[in-house]
């Protein structure tokens, strides 16, 4: 008997992805530009060109066109469209979207894998910091001597407004973007975030906002500071409209990301991961996300009302027509104050993680530290009018806001207690991430204490609007948050790339940035104490020496950040290999291999103890 072997072709399983296979960053850019041009043409032709708000209307509609086109081009709406037509995603689609077996290309498109989104956020953060840093160099160069020898005062005002906004955006995402995305799902023992597609959406929406913000510089800038105070925001040119649309787009991104973080932590913890066994970074990220969900809608509202005043002739903020500028300030600072704690808490959380690992000690007073962070977040919604002490709004409320603001020093003190308690009698391993912890402690003491000065009204009457305030918040933003973000980068770099960030370059960078920060901003305190107002492009000769010193310090910071950039880039492929857990940490992300597999865990772990069991006998081997 002969048996015949028949060869029949078996069709390959359907490739996942569908239309996603064709969409990437390039198609997003093209679609964004095309839609923006169409929107511009439609608005320009159909709207009344003699109307008062005409140029604002055209600019706003163009910006909407850009964002819609960009999101269509990256594929943000594709799955919604599919769902509406009854075709939900297949498993192959989901695997394609998660970037399975896709190599480098998956970083350039709408990828849902939280680790890919984390790396994309690192790049976006570096772009924002780089652009903001460039403008900072422009500001400090102009302030090297009085007389506006570098740029004129109009360009200077635009520099400082856009520098402020770029840096605020950079810091909001600096720790939360890369690390709440990359690390938190693994830390809680999940395979991905609760809403992977929303994760990718939050990143690409942020990317869509950046050209709008940079574009505002190109159309005449905006000269009202990043706080866009009414009534001067009403007077500004069309650069303001792009600025405001960038912010509105950003608030969508951050709301989506915040919801994602909270749902992941609440619902996707693995078996045995009770709330008391969560790493402190997870707590910090969740509390910050919740605070952001409260605060950022105010940002959306205040920018929309401001645009409406310009575009539609409403008078929410125009005193002569029944509105008031104070409304704008209240709405803005209702967002603005909680926002600085949204920025601070993830950085503090990351630094606390680093301290436990590098001092080989459990976190000191775990419950108190959570209470401290929650107290900080809770109190921060009650203090906003301390930014308005000298505006003449509600003088009778000065006392109550002074009380709430000074009370914030109590939870802030708890952070120091936890840090120092964790360091106490530890075996402190001075590797690169630990440097940034110590830098943070030194800078945050200065930043925190100078904030207390400003909370006192008689002192604030002298210091508000001077360089003292600028030095205070730079000590907190640069000296504390940026140090936390860089520490987090040095700490988790081996997990992302499998290589150490070059220690020597990292230490050179640390010393340059630390010394530069203190030189720049201590000299700035002096100029503020002596009477130099902020947002001044030129100043009286009596402030010259301190400004020259500040500018030199700024160049030193620039050098340090460039060295860091060089280290990040050169170590990515050529750094010293690190293995999966070079720091001997006990949190879950270090217990998975490097590079982290697509679904994080072969088998989801069962947790029996918290990750801070340093110095304790193991209960089970």
């Amino acid at each position, binding site marked *: 008997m002969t048996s015949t072997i028949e060869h029949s072709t078996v069709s390959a399983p359907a490739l996942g992805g569908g239309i996603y296979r064709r969409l990437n960053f390039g198609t997003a850019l093209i679609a964004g530009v095309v839609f923006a041009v169409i929107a511009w043409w439609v608005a320009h032709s159909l709207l009344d060109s003699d109307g008062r708000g005409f140029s604002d209307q055209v600019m706003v509609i163009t910006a909407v066109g850009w964002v819609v086109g960009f999101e269509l081009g990256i594929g943000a709406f594709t799955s919604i469209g599919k769902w509406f037509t009854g075709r939900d995603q297949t498993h192959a689609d989901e695997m394609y979207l998660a970037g399975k077996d896709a190599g480098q290309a998956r970083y350039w498109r709408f990828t849902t894998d939280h680790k890919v989104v984390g790396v994309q956020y690192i790049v976006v953060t570096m772009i924002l910091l780089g652009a903001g840093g460039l403008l900072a160099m422009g500001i400090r160069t102009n302030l090297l001597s009085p007389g506006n020898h570098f740029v004129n005062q109009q360009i200077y005002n635009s520099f400082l407004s856009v520098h402020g906004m770029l840096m605020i955006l950079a810091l909001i995402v600096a720790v939360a973007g890369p690390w709440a995305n990359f690390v938190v799902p693994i830390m809680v023992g999940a395979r991905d975030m609760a809403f992977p597609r929303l994760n990718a959406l939050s990143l690409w929406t942020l990317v869509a906002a950046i050209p709008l913000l940079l574009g505002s510089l190109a159309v005449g800038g905006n000269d009202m500071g990043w706080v866009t105070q009414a009534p001067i925001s009403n007077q500004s040119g069309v650069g303001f409209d792009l600025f405001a649309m960038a912010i509105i787009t950003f608030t969508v991104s951050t709301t989506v990301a915040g919801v994602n973080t909270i749902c992941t932590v609440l619902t996707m913890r693995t078996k045995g991961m009770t709330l008391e066994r969560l790493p402190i970074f997870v707590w910090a990220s969740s509390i910050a996300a919740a605070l952001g969900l409260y605060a950022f809608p105010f940002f959306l509202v205040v920018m929309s009302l401001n645009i409406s005043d310009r575009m539609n002739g409403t008078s929410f903020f125009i*005193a002569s027509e029944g509105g008031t500028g104070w409304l704008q300030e209240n709405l803005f600072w209702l967002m603005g104050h909680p926002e600085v704690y949204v920025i601070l808490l993830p950085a503090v959380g990351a630094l606390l993680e680093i301290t436990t690992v590098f001092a*080989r000690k459990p*976190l000191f007073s775990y419950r108190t530290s959570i209470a401290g962070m929650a107290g900080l977040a809770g109190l921060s919604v009650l203090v906003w009018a301390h930014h308005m002490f000298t505006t*003449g709004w509600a003088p009778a409320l000065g006392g109550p806001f002074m009380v709430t603001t*000074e009370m914030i020093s109590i939870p802030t003190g708890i952070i120091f207690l936890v840090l120092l308690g964790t360091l106490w009698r530890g075996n*402190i391993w001075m590797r690169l991430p630990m440097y940034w912890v*110590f830098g943070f402690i030194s800078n945050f003491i200065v930043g925190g204490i100078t904030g207390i000065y400003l909370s*006192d009204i*008689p002192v604030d009457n002298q210091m508000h609007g001077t360089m003292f305030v600028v030095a205070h918040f730079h000590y907190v933003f640069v000296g504390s948050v940026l140090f936390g973000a860089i520490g987090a980068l040095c700490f988790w770099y081996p997990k992302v790339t499998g290589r150490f960030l070059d220690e020597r370059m990292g230490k050179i960078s640390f010393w340059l940035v630390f010394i530069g920060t203190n030189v720049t901003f201590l000299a700035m305190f002096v100029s503020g104490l002596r009477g130099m107002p902020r947002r001044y492009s030129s100043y009286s000769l009596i402030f010259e020496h301190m400004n020259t010193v500040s500018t030199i310090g700024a160049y030193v910071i620039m050098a340090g950040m460039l060295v860091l950039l060089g280290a990040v880039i050169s170590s990515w492929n050529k750094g010293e290999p690190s293995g999966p857990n070079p720091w001997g940490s006990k949190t879950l992300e270090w217990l998975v291999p490097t590079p982290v597999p697509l679904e994080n865990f072969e088998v989801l772990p069962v947790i029996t103890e918290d990750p801070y069991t*340093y110095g304790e006998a193991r209960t089970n081997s």
Partner: protein
Amino acid sequence: MTSEKTTTSRAIVTIGILWVLLTAAGVLVSIYATPWLMPDSASNTMHMGILTMIIFSVAAAPVAALVYAVVLYALAKWRYTGEGIPPDGPSLRANSPLTMVWIIGSTALTLFLLVWGLSLLASDNSGQGGANEMTVNVTGQQWLWSFQYPSTASTQNGTPVSVSNEDLYLPVNTPIKFNVTSKDVDHGFWIVQMGIKINAIPDTITTTEVTPNKLGDYDIRCTEICGLNHSYMTTKVHVLTEKAFSNWLAAQPKHF
């Protein structure tokens, strides 16, 4: 076990000494550097403001000193100098008495600063509002200040006129009330050496009060970003003796 107790007590003693030294340095710097760094004081408001800065700095000195003392000791004594991952440290998870002391201490310090600040706030306007209080109308506009003395108002050929000027002149030891407004956007009216600051807001009148107590020339600077020439929106205030001031006022031409 004894060695652990000795380590801890040695640490506490050394940190304690370091703390005292750093606090002393901080207090000295607070008391001497603060008035040197700040502008001259030309009013009681400013004097109390500088005093508040000194008090806050002195109160903050032990807090900062404690943090730096612990950090410096940690870097000196608890640094691991071996190869590879260090061995685990002691499992010190909590210390309730310490945490209680820390929280109570920081609350007490905060309360002290609050009591000081609130009582200063409440007392700031004493001495104002008397019969000899003089009113000055301050107008901020893009991009300069102009000052008008309503006590000189009269009419000239049916047009209301009064004395107004681009520099501010004030008599010493007289309570002054400023009615501040703006013609266009928000500006910040700040008399640097007198420690008063209030925004000038369009279609609104905000007020502030001060009693200058020192003769001389001082600075007024705008502190709310108001556009193109915000940096140039500065002018001078000249505090004269009461006699010199009334002579000056009488000699000024009246404008619309």
